[in-house]
């Protein structure tokens, strides 16, 4: 480097320093009249094709850009109201046939996509057919069976098609291509029917009361046929043809997404012209961004500590809402040692939910004493009365089962470190010390990443492990059927193998009971059985948290977990 080079280099350095200084002084941190709302999140997208999308953030993006048939009320009480439909189909208004097998969808007129394409009954059929499982080409890796389509199994013919299709790909195949084609033809003929431009009918294969909720789900949302061919997935988020309040205009993975107001939206226009969603990698990063004012709203996921810190900050408003996500321990009740119900009960006695909720979550969540979440129809705190924390009774049960100080019950508690947030390890550590407090148990902790974890527990390699449930629809059925119904393979897929024929019957019964009192009684019986046999130990019900600047208003938290950007405005 000669002198001239040295001078040039130092000049560049000086210019850079000056530029940074100028940047610091001149870039307005908060414009005087904010027109852009910035929301920070640590969530990330997966595929954004509505018929393929089953990830929280992707679905939430779709909810804000697409009009669904029904939607959750903005009152936040979890009730459904019409969006693209003119009314919520019920038995009373004839929307649901008396046998419960036909849903009549009456569309509002004048609704269009942002390119002007009208949303009519044909669009509905195109979209639902597509969601159930259009005949995607198995040879191409790009196309695979739609993940959320299993929710639509109850539609007439859908289940048969899905079964045939998956049979075709088994080794050796259990179904032929001809059978698949036939199953598809049967579904198309019987599943969704176009009556006229504004009326469509869905024919059900069986009575299934949660169907209403699915009408609010994005996999049934009408997609623009211009952008979404019947037999191909379109993962590109920018292909979303807006029918809802916003249009996605920019999507840079891991960096930002920009939503601009959709002027063709038939409903109330979005309050803010433009929303920028900013992605953060860690909870800590999100919390810091909120603290420095880089973002206006922080939603999902803040660590309880960070949430508490931000909530005492005078600049911000912190809000908490219920969430239907439940957390629990699973026992493998098929294999020893937990095939012995006494041990499951002993562990239930030794659990201290209060300490977990207080220490790890700083009382931002609530203990859970049943698999059906608090506030949901049929919920009863069965574990609160049956298993208060009682080390003496835990010890008695353990001693009865043959364990002593010299011969401790040795178990490994498994957890997965990332899927359920950064608090999971702390919960595991506390459970370890709570159980070891009996003096008769020695606990080892171990963890696996979710992909491995899921495989391991499904293969029966874990004896006791932490798990969580994100519901598919807000009905008690979704909290008992998958967990406790043995015949359908539910308990098996949970790594529990709990088997109780009486319970299977009760679960089937409640799904068909339309009388609330009768159904409540059935659900109560189910929960009593749950408390007696302890195949699971419910631990807590999660909360959803949001922090926003005091200059922001209109944030709605509700059970549906549908985070509405379009209601948020600056004061």
């Amino acid at each position, binding site marked *: 480097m000669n002198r001239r080079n040295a001078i040039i280099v130092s000049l560049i350095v000086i210019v850079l320093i000056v530029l*940074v200084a100028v940047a610091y002084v001149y870039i307005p941190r908060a414009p005087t009249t904010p027109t852009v709302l910035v929301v920070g999140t640590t969530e990330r997208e997966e595929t954004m094709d509505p018929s393929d999308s089953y990830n929280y953030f992707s679905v939430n993006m779709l909810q804000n850009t697409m009009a669904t048939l029904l939607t959750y009320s903005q009152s936040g009480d979890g009730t459904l109201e019409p969006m693209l439909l003119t009314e919520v189909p019920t038995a009373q208004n004839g929307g649901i046939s008396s046998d419960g097998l036909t849903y009549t969808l009456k569309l509002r007129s004048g609704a269009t996509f942002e390119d002007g394409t009208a949303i009519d009954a044909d669009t509905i059929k195109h979209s639902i057919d597509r969601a159930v499982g259009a005949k995607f080409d198995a040879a191409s890796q790009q196309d695979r069976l739609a993940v959320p389509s299993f929710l639509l199994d109850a539609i007439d013919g859908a289940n048969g098609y899905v079964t045939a299709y998956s049979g075709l790909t088994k080794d050796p195949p259990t179904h032929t291509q001809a059978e698949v084609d036939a199953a598809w033809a049967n579904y198309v003929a019987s599943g969704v029917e176009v009556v006229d431009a504004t009326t469509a009918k869905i024919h059900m294969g069986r009575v299934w009361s949660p169907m209403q909720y699915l009408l609010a789900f994005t996999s049934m949302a009408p997609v623009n046929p211009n952008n979404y061919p019947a037999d191909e997935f379109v993962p590109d988020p920018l292909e979303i043809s807006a029918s809802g309040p916003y249009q996605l205009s920019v999507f840079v993975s891991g960096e930002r997404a920009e939503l601009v107001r959709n002027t063709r939206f038939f409903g109330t226009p979005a309050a803010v012209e433009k929303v920028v969603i900013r992605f953060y990698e860690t909870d800590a990063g999100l919390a810091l961004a909120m603290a*420095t004012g880089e973002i206006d709203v922080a939603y999902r996921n803040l660590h309880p500590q960070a949430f508490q810190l931000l909530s005492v900050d005078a600049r911000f408003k912190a809000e908490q809402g219920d969430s239907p996500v439940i957390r629990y321990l699973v026992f493998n009740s098929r294999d020893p040692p937990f095939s012995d119900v006494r041990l499951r009960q002993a562990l239930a006695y030794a659990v201290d939910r209060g300490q977990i909720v207080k220490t790890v979550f700083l009382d931002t969540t609530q203990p859970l004493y049943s698999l059906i979440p608090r506030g949901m129809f049929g919920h009863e705190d069965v574990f609160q009365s049956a298993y208060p924390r009682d080390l003496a009774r835990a010890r008695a049960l353990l001693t009865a089962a043959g364990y002593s100080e010299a011969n401790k019950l040795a178990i490994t508690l498994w957890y997965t470190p990332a899927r359920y947030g950064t608090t999971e390890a702390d919960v595991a550590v506390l459970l370890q010390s709570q159980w070891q407090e009996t003096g008769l148990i020695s606990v080892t902790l171990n963890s696996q990443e*979710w992909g491995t974890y899921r495989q391991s527990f499904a293969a029966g390699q874990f004896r006791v492990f932490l798990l969580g449930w994100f519901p598919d629809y807000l009905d008690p059925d979704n909290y008992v059927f998958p967990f406790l119904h043995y015949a359908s393979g539910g308990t098996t897929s949970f790594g529990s193998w709990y088997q109780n024929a009486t319970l299977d019957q009760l679960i089937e019964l409640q799904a068909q009971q339309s009388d609330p009192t009768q159904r409540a009684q059935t659900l109560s019986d189910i929960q009593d059985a749950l408390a007696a046999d302890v195949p699971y130990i419910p631990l807590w019900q999660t909360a959803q948290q949001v922090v926003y600047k005091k200059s922001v208003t209109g944030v709605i938290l509700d059970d549906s977990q549908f985070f509405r950007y379009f209601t948020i405005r600056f004061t």
Partner: protein
Amino acid sequence: MPRATSSLRAYVLQRLALTVPMMFILLTLVFYFLRAAPGDPVSQILGERNAQFADVIRKQLGLDRPLYIQYFDYLRRIFTGDMGASLFTQRPVAEDIAHRLPATIELTIASMAVAIVVGVLLGVVSATRRDRPADVASRLTAAVLYNTPIFWFGIIMQLIFAVGLGWFDVGGRLDARLPLPPTITGLYTVDSLLTGQFVTFLDALKHLVLPATTLGLVLSGFFARMVRANMLQSLQADYVEAAKARGVRRGDVFYHHALKNAMVPVATTIGLTFAILFSGAILTETVFSWPGIGLYVANAIGARDYPALQGAVVYYALIMVFVSVVIDILAAWLDPRIRY
């Protein structure tokens, strides 16, 4: 000290020639490591349920075929530039990486600049004041810098300069309220300058400062060591003594003779430095939410997104080839002996 003319050139040529088999070895290692992994990508895709679809998906991803067939298929695809689709976003991995590459390049260049400037300064101070307090101080600084956990350092930087003093933002590449510059090179600083968006340029620069300083300072410890060692050698070189004997000015002896000669071997190791830089980038990008390849890798690992991981490895191998060429040019620029 005859720094053999041929050895340097041979080194660079060898590096270039070796990148092909090295790429191949890397790809093979990664393929087998990942396929041996117990984590099943299919389970990762599916939620708590839906086991009935696992077979279908596995078949469609080709995961049911014998391993060697998968391996050849994998090589064939990479050769044709098809790195498959991410299991999660369903977008082609090549596209994902192309989107994220500029962010990493921007961070890498800036960090490298910080590392070289600070590293050379520390190393030179150290070498010219050998065994005196300034040397000891520089070496201590370099040792502490290089041995600081980068994630911890990044967090401290955020706390001091973003949270405490409020000078910089805690993460990201650009203020969310500013529109993204049009994509020309993908480097926000360059694109905004090219299109004359001065405010965007300043903001992009402002966001770049903290992560680049974090990564650069840690790496500078490495450079300082190298510069010091090479400076000590070149300060003792015969031509330096000869220059002194001719009454050449101290500054000229220092720059033209000692420093420039010391930088030749330093420059040729930038390729290896890149491995350190990339390791650091995984952590730095995580801490600063910097949407580059490092972050992509971190996410892909957690999610067992094999195509994405493989894509990242292919990308890294390509970068190695590119870096080799750059080093070749740099070394030739620095050292006339390899300009033939």
